[in-house]
């Protein structure tokens, strides 16, 4: 996801990480860890203590949404997959150019089932930094990866 942010930054595409859960003090400390330990290079923002934003958008542990400048929701996924996000952003990035070229574009709805890579080695390696309890709980919660 960091690579996608870097790759499309020049095409007027923004990208952030929105930190959810835990107390405000923990939120900020863990948000710093995201940057300093896990190497998230995108701007990191922190949700309210009651998770108002996270809850309004569905409370999934690691979801991704894409918004147009107007606030229009153009993409939502209940799990983050870099291939899916890049595929979507490649499509959206050319919309302004198509409009500038004179195309009259109107939105329409698409439903699609994407497939994510279940290779969790790197994820679990990072999760191990949080201790065996974190790893055990995640494996039990998502035994299929």
């Amino acid at each position, binding site marked *: 996801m960091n690579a*996608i942010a870097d790759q499309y930054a020049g095409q*007027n*595409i*923004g*990208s*952030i*990480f*929105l*930190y*959810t*859960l*835990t107390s405000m003090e923990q939120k*900020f400390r*863990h*948000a710093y860890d*995201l*940057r300093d330990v*896990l190497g998230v290079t995108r*701007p990191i*923002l*922190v*949700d*309210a*203590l*009651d*998770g*108002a*934003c996270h*809850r*309004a*958008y*569905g*409370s*999934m*542990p*690691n*979801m*991704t*949404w*894409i*918004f147009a*400048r*107007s*606030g*229009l*929701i*153009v*993409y*939502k996924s209940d799990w*983050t997959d870099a291939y899916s*996000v890049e595929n979507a*952003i490649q499509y*959206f*990035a050319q919309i302004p150019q198509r409009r500038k070229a004179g195309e009259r574009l109107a939105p329409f*709805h698409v439903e699609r089932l994407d497939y994510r890579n279940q290779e969790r080695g790197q994820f679990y390696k990072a999760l191990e930094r949080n201790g065996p*309890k*974190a790893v055990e*709980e*995640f494996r039990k*919660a998502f035994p299929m990866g």
Partner: protein
Amino acid sequence: MKKYMNDLLTRYNYDSFIPEKFEPWMNFASSPKTGTLAPDFPLWELDQAPTRLSEIWSQHDFTIVEFGSFT
């Protein structure tokens, strides 16, 4: 009201990542639809400066927002 808020904060900021605690919050199916205006919320930058989600999405043609935590 205070009791409700305390209860909400305790249940939302669960101490263990187990289905009994996080599944009740998961409501992606009833979350805002594509093609609609996104609900706006206050957020904070890492230096604790307040901002809003709308301030973020209004800065670029399109903005990717990944939600997650590191516990």
